[in-house]
């Protein structure tokens, strides 16, 4: 199969990208790393298992979805709005981080990560989960299970799972409207 290029346009972290000629079948992760210099989405397994490479897709209805970039072609994102780990924190006009997102802040406070390789994926996964909880709040007793289920597919080789879980639980409990009493 010849790898012809095809023009593509998308929005990444609120910035319009393209049209840019991108080889068909190039994986999204390679596009982010090589074309946009956004290297935060990590290459882990390259097989769609570890979820270190995920990004947020902002759907047209305003909801957020998580997508793996190591096994999904760049052209699948044509016309879509994507948020990578680099676009999660608040930044000033110079691009310097001014405010971490609540999830990022909680991960630091809970010492959730050690080597940090899986952290971008966990931030993305937790961000998408909290977005869902805003629309579909869960009861307090179900909260741990819901977090576990949502983040279960993310692999952490330092086994920091419990601290990730505690951090996300903290954010969910502190944010009004996510957990019903």
């Amino acid at each position, binding site marked *: 199969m010849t790898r012809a290029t095809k023009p593509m346009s998308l929005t990444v972290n609120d910035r319009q990208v393209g049209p840019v000629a991108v080889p068909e079948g190039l994986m999204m992760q390679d596009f982010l790393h090589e074309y946009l210099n956004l290297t935060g989405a990590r290459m882990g397994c390259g097989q769609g*298992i570890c979820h270190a490479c995920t990004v947020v897709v902002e759907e047209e209805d305003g909801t957020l979805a998580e997508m793996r970039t190591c096994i999904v*072609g760049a*052209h699948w994102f044509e016309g879509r709005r994507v948020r990578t780990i680099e676009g999660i924190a608040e930044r000033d006009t110079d691009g310097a981080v001014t405010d971490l997102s609540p999830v990022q802040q909680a991960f630091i406070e809970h010492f959730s990560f050690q080597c940090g390789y899986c952290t971008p994926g966990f931030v993305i996964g937790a961000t998408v989960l909290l977005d869902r909880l805003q629309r579909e709040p869960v009861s307090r007793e179900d909260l741990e299970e819901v977090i576990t289920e949502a983040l279960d597919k993310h692999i952490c080789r330092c086994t920091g799972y419990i601290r990730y879980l505690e951090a996300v639980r903290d954010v969910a409990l502190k944010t009004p409207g996510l957990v019903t009493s």
Partner: protein
Amino acid sequence: MKKRFVVFYTAGVVLIFMFAAAVAVFFGAFQSSVVGSEVEEPLLPDERKALAERGAYVATAADCYACHTAPGGAPWAGGLPIETPFGIIYATNISPDKEHGIGEWTRAEFHRAMRDGVGKHGAPLYPAMPYVSYRKMTPEDVDAVYAYLMSREPMPVADKTNELTFPFNMRRLLRFWNLLNLPGDTFQARDDRSEQWNRGHYVVDALGHCGECHTPRNVMMGMKESAYLQGAVLEGMEAPDVTREGLLRMGFDAPSLAHFMQRGVSAQGGMTGDMFEVVHFSTQYMRQEDLDAMAAYLFDVDDIAAAEEPPPQPEPVEVSAEIAASARGTYLNLCSGCHGASGEGIPHVAVPMTTNITLRLEDPRNFLQTVLHGIPELDFPGVERMQPMPDFADKLDDQELADLATWMRARWGGQGSDVSPSDVENLRREAHD
């Protein structure tokens, strides 16, 4: 006047006779047993001990464990729900527990359950228990399984009550079913075929009970012998045609089939769903000579070494430019990351598409179901593992998936018929029924 009387009289007699016959069947008067009287004699403890080890192998080849142990349940204690069009039947406890299992069953009662489909107290078993197939087992093999099961740990786990609708909850009605669907004969070796072929026939029909899934069922849910092993749809998936023609179509030769049954994964793809369980619990443990015999029989050759070569890769079929453009984009975006841009796959990670069985089947059902619902992580025999395949039900609309199916089936499976969006829609609806 007289003539009328005769007609009435005759009709009355016929009706009474039919009613009497029905009552007789209902109460078991016409049950045909293939169990000989020699098994009335109990096995001596020493005999049981000597038989148990062989029984472990026979029970494995007959795949008893897969149904009689629920996931996460106690071994041999039953409890697996088996969904039928008439309700749920629960597999029973066949550990030697005296209260809940078969601890009090005699050798003869066990033989009658296995080969006549009759329980300890004479009530018919539901044919979810494949006694129609096990009927062909030799008395020696049944003895061995009995000896093996009796050597297991008793599990005090009560059987679950079946959830069947009326009239299917009346076990005695199965006597009518048996009358029509339970063959009177037992396994007969054929003198004009080799030992290997005959052994394969026995492994396929009696132990492996392959026909229970691969032979379509008639209106009475009995195995339709005229379409023996020609494939059937079960729980939304096709158990493919495993006759010689069907196997050749899928790209097998006899040795590669034997290998596939043992390893569960090969160039032809990976076993999934119910067939994964068959490999997981049963065929991976079969002896090489039994795997070879099974393959020789299915390919209808006397010697596996003499089996013909597999057919060449089917020629790609042209599809319209519109379908190709849509499907190629989908494939490169959502499939190629694992299955390769040219369908070559990644060894030990994702199976190749170029030689995949599913693309060569006439019915696109299995392909569509797999793409819609994905495949869970699978732990194949040995050290092979397969990562989960994602589900794409909410990533692809009916048209995109239909185009993908048409294109992949044409390109690698040599299938010329277009898959339509309504095919996809129907399968999506089936999943919700």
